[in-house]
C-alpha cells in the first residue's frame, strides 16, 4: 500500500508514430523513503494471434504462429539501486520510437484473432522482503501517412431482387429498388465512410437500414490459413419506413483501436468490409457487401 508506481506518457491521446520520441514520466509516490534494487522501463510491441475455435483443430500443426510476434522491445535502466525520498518522485523518460532495419511499426489494433498492442512497463525491483512493483501503460501507435495521393474509388450500387445471390425463392420476394453509392471504398481511417442511399421503391415497408462494419482477419503461414470475418460495429442509418426517393446519408465513423489501415503481412492479414443491410418488415434481410481499403493519410 505504501508505494505506488505510475507511468504517464506526455500526450493526452497517447498516440505516437514511427520516428517520434515517446516521452513521459514515471511517478512514484510513497509516504516513506523507498529502498529499491533499480527501476527499469520497458517498451514492448507485439502481435498476438489467436486461432478461432473452429480452426484450431485443423491447424494445430502450426502452433508456433500463435506465439506473439515481437515488433519492438527495449529496456532502459532508469534508476540505479538505491533510495528514493518520501513523497512524490517524478522521473522523466524518453524513448525513441525507431524500428531497426526494414521492420515496420504496425498500427495498434484490437481485434478478435489479431491484436497489435504496445505497452510501457515499469518495474521496480525490490529486496526479497518487499514485492517487486510493476505498472504497465498502453500507448497507441499510428502508422505513418502513406505516401502518394489516395485515389478515390467511388462505387455505385443498385439492389433489386434480381441482383441478389443466395435467394431460395426469388418469387416470394417483395419488389424493391434500392440505389446508392459510396463516395469511396478507399478510405482514410480518420475520415468517415460516406455515401448515399435511396429507396426508390419497396413493396414491403422498410424496417431498418444498417451499416455493418466487418473485420476480416487472416492468420496463417505456408501450411494454411484461417480467415474469420466478425462484426465490429453496426450503425443504423435508417429507422422505419423511410421516405421513397429521398437520399439517406451513409455515414460511419471508423472506431479507434478497432480499426487500422488494411494490413497484410506474411503471417497475418487484417482487412475490412462494410455490409449494407436492409431489413424489411416481413423480416427479409438484404445484404450488400463492399470490401474497403483503409489507410492513414
Amino acid at each position, binding site marked *: 500500500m505504501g508505494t505506488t508506481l505510475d507511468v504517464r506518457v506526455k500526450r493526452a491521446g497517447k498516440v505516437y508514430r514511427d520516428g517520434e520520441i515517446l516521452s513521459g514520466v514515471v511517478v512514484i509516490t510513497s509516504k516513506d523513503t523507498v529502498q529499491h534494487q533499480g527501476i527499469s522501463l520497458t517498451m514492448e510491441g507485439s502481435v498476438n494471434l489467436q486461432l478461432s475455435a473452429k480452426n484450431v483443430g485443423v491447424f494445430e500443426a502450426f502452433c508456433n504462429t500463435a506465439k506473439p510476434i515481437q515488433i519492438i522491445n527495449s529496456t532502459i535502466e532508469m534508476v540505479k539501486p538505491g533510495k528514493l525520498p518520501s513523497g512524490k518522485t517524478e522521473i522523466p523518460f524518453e524513448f525513441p520510437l525507431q524500428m531497426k532495419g526494414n521492420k515496420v511499426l504496425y498500427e495498434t489494433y484490437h481485434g478478435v484473432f489479431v491484436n497489435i498492442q504496445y505497452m510501457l512497463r515499469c518495474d521496480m525491483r525490490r529486496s526479497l522482503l518487499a514485492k517487486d512493483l510493476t505498472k504497465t501503460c498502453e500507448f497507441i501507435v499510428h502508422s505513418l501517412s502513406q505516401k502518394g495521393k489516395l485515389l478515390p474509388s467511388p462505387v455505385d450500387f443498385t439492389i433489386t431482387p434480381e441482383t441478389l445471390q443466395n435467394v431460395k425463392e426469388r418469387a416470394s420476394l417483395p419488389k424493391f429498388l434500392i440505389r446508392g453509392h459510396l463516395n469511396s471504398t478507399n478510405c482514410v481511417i480518420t475520415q468517415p465512410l460516406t455515401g448515399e442511399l435511396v429507396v426508390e421503391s419497396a413493396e414491403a415497408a422498410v424496417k431498418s437500414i444498417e451499416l455493418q462494419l466487418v473485420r476480416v482477419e487472416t492468420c496463417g503461414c505456408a501450411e494454411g490459413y484461417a480467415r474469420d470475418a466478425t462484426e465490429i460495429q453496426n450503425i443504423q*442509418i435508417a429507422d422505419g419506413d423511410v*421516405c421513397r426517393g429521398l437520399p439517406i446519408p451513409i455515414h460511419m465513423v471508423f472506431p479507434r483501436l478497432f480499426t487500422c489501415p488494411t494490413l497484410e503481412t506474411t503471417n497475418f492479414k487484417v482487412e475490412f468490409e462494410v455490409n449494407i443491410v436492409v431489413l424489411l418488415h416481413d423480416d427479409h434481410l438484404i445484404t450488400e457487401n463492399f470490401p474497403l481499403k483503409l489507410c492513414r493519410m
Partner: protein
Amino acid sequence: SYFLRHARARNYVSESEMCKLESIPLDFGDYHPLKPITVTESKTKKMTRKGSTSSTSSSSSSSMMDPLSSVLDGTDPLSLFAAAADPVTTAPSTDGARRKRDKDESSAVGSDFEPWSSKRGEILARYTTTEKLSINLYMGSEKGKATTTGSAVSEKVRTRLEELDDLEEGSQKELLNLTQQDYMNRIEELNQSLKDAWSSDQKVKALKIVIQCSKLLSDTTVIQFYPSKFVLITDILDTFGKLVYERILSMCVDNRVPLPDNFSPESVNDTAKETCLNWFFKIASIRELIPRFYVEAAILKCNKFLSKTGISECLPRLTSMIRGIGDPLVAVYARAYLCRVGMEVAPQLKESLNKNFFDFLLTFKQIHGDTVQNQLVVQCVEIPLYLTLYSPAIDWILQCIAYHAPDVLLTEMMERCKKLGNNALLLNSVMSAFRAEFIAARSMDFIAMIKECDESGFPKHLLFRSLGLNLALADPPENDRLQILNEAWKVITKLKNPQDYINCAEVWVEYTCRHFTKREVNTVLADVIKHMTPDRAFEDAYPQLQSIIQKVITYIYDFALLFSVEKFLPFLDMFQKESVRVEVCKCIMESFIKHQQESTKDPVILNALLHICKTMHDSVNALTLEDEKRMLATLINGFIKMVSFGRDFEQQLSFYVEARSMFCNLEPVLVQLIHSVNQLAMETRRVMKGNHSRKTAAFVRACVAFCFITIPSLSSIFTRLNLYLHSGQVALANQCLSQADAFFKAAVSLVPEVPKMISVDGKMRPSDAFLLEFLCNFFSTLLVVPDHPEQGVLFLVRGLLNVIQDYTWEDNSDDKVRIYTNVLHLLSAMTQETFIYHVDKVDSNDTLYGGDSKFLAEINKLSETVVSQILDHLKTLGKEETLKRQSQLAHYFFNTILAHGDLRNNRLNQLSVNLWNLAQKHGFADTKTMVKTLEYIKRRSKQPEMSHFTDLALRLPLQSRT
C-alpha cells in the same frame, strides 16, 4: 349630596379669539420643499464621454432636474475616472469592438425570440393522454435479459425486483401500465439519476441513461402523448448536453483562469480535446439511429472545443441524418430539436434551419402513406387529431426560420408551402410562427389560401383562428379590413360544431372590436348568440364567452355606446351558470367604475347596470365569503355613486328607493344608500339656502323617513348608532325636529343593546372604546337639540343618562365615570347664555329658555347627581389594587373642574384641592403632568378675572415622589 355645582360663565367668542394662534400672513415665496429642484446654472463641464445619453438628457431637462441624476452626470469620481480612461482604451479598438458587437448581435438570440421554455408548458398541457404508457429501459449487456425473462414470477413482482436493481449494469426495466403522471415522474427520476451518475463520476452510466431515454423517442405508441414525451425527454438531453459541455470547459481552466466566452479551439488544451473527441467517438458508435442523433445533437456545442467550423459542419450532417427516420412525426420532432439546439448554439447558421424545413416538405407526403395510416387505425386516432400533433414541432421550426428573417425569405417559404397544395397544416404553422405584421399585411392572400387549401383532415377553423390571432396583434391594411372580416366571418359562421365555432369567434371578436363600430360588433355578437343557443351549447363554452365579453369591454368602455349594442344584454343572458354570470358582471362593473368619468342618468345604462348589479347581489347567499360580499358591495356602491339625476331630486330618491329594494342583502350597500339619501337632503337644503318650501320640506321628510326605516335593517349595532346620530343631525339641519327626536330616541334606546364584545375585522374586541366615542359625539349633538315641548326639560339627556346608569358596564372599568365627567362638560355648556354652536334656523335651548332660572336649576340638579355619582365611585376605588385608577380619575375630574367650573366658589375650590390631593395621595400621579398642570394654573392666573387662580395654585402642593 351636599354639593352645588357652579359652572363657569364663558364667553366663547372672546375665548376663541384669545386661544387662536397668532396668524401670520403666508409667504408664497419661491421655496417649497415639494417643488422640483430647478437648477439654473449652465453646464460648463465638457465630458469626453462616449455615452451620449447622459449629456443630451441633462441639457434638455434643466428645468426639471433631480439631484440624483445630476450626480450621475459624471461628476462623481468613478465616472470621471472612467471618462478619463475611456478614450485611451477604446480608441484603438473601437472598430474592432463594433465589429465584434455586430457579430455578437447575429450570433446571440435576442429577447424578442420566444424561447423554448415558454412553449414547454403549453405543449405539456395540451398533449395529454389517459391511456397507459410504458417505459422500456435496457441498460447494457445481454446478461440482463436472461435473468429477467423466463422466470415465472408475476408481472408485479418482476417490476418490483427490477426496481431494486434500478438501472444497474445490465438490467432491463420495463414499466408497463403507467399513467401519464407516473410516466412524467419516472422521467424526472431518470433526469435525477443522470445527474447523480454524473456527479458520482459514472460517465458511462450517464451516457447509457441518455441513450435509453432518447430511445424512447422512437416509440410512437400512444401517439397523442408524443409531443409531451418529446418535451420531457429533451429536457434530459439538455441536462446532459450542459453537463458534458461544462465538464470539458472546466478541464480547460488554465492556471485557474477560465476560458473566455468566445474562446478559439487553439486555446483548448489537449486533455480537454481528447475527452471531447472521446465523447464524439463513443456517440458515433451508438447502434441505433435515433439515440445517436439525439445524443450528438445534445452535445453539439462541444464542437467548439475541437474546431471553429465544427458546428457548421455538423449541423448539415445531422440535418440530413434525420432523413433516415422513417416515421414522419418522429422525424419532424427530431428536426425541431436540432433547430432548437442550433438556435441556441449557432443562431447565425440559418441554412440548416431552412434545410430542415425543406426536407420536411419533401417527406410530407409520408403522412398520407400506408405505414402512418395503418398505425393510426391501430391506435384509433383520427387524422385531424394526428395532424395537430405536428403543430408544435413545425411551429417551432418556422419560428426559428422566421426570426429576424427578411420578408423575401418568408415569401419564399410561403411559396414552397403553396406548391405543396396549400396544405392546411403548414399554413397554420406559418401563421403561428411568422411575424404578425407579415401575416397581417397579407391577410387577403392568406384568406385566399385558406379557402383554397386542401384540408386533408386539418380543421379549417384552426386556420381562421390562427389568422385571427395574428390580426389581434397587428393591423392589416386599412382598405382590406372590412373585407377580411366579411370573408372570415362567412366561413366561421358556417362552422357546425359549437366548440370549433366559439374558439374561432372568440379570436375574431377582438379584431372586430378593434377596427369597427358597434354595428359590426352587434352583428358578431348576434351571430355568436345564434350559434351558441341551440342545445344550450353555451354551457360548454363559458371561458370563451367570458373572454369575448372581456374583449368587448376592453375596446368599448363608453357605457352609453356599449349598451346601445343591442345584443350585448342578450349575450349576457347566455351566462346561465351563476358563478360565471357573477364573474362577468363583476368584470363589467369594474370596467364601469374604472372608465366612467361623469355621473350619469342615462336610463339605458341605469337599467342595464341595475340588472347587472342585481345579478351580483342575488348571487349572495349564506355561503358567500365575506371578502366576496365586500367586493360585490364595493362594485355596487361604485355604481350608486355614479348615478345622478341632477336637480331632479325626487327621481334621485326614487332611484335610491328602488336600489334599496334590490340590494337589501348587502349591508354596505344599504349604508351607502343612507349616506346618499342624507346627502340628498343636505343638497336640497343647500339649493333652498336653508329655507325649505312646503314641497322641499315634504321631500326632505321623505328622505328622513327613508333613513329611519332603513337603519333598523342593519345588523351592526355601531353602524346603526352612528347612522341614527348622523341622520338625526341631518334631520335637525333640515328643521325636521320631531324626526330628529325620533332618531335620537332610537339611538338612546339602542345603547343598552351594545354588546361588550364586537367583531372587528373578524376579531372580537371590547366595545367600550367605540361606545365611549359614540356617546361623547352624541352628547355634543344633544347640546343643540331643543327640548320637546311635551317632554320634560332635557328629556333626551336624562334618557341617555338613565341608559348609561343601567348599562352593564365591565366590572373593573371607569368608563361610566368618564362619561359622567364628560356629561359635566355638556351641562356646563348648557348653562351658558349663548351656546357655543347652533344649527342654522333651529332654536336651541338657550333661545327657548332664555336662561330661565328653572331651567338652570334643572341643570344644577342634574349635575349634582352626576357629581355625587363620580365621588361615590372615587370612594369605591380606595382599595389597594385600584389606587392607581383612583388617582387617574381624580386628576381627570380635577381637570374638568379646572376647565369648566367657577373656582371662585369656595366649595368647588375646596373640592378641587381635595381632588388634587387625592390624585397625589398614593404616589400614582405622574409628576410631570402634575407639574405641567400647576404651571398652567399659574399662567392662567395672570389673565384678567383669573386672579383667584393664584390662590388656588398656592393651595395645591406638589408631592415629590419618594
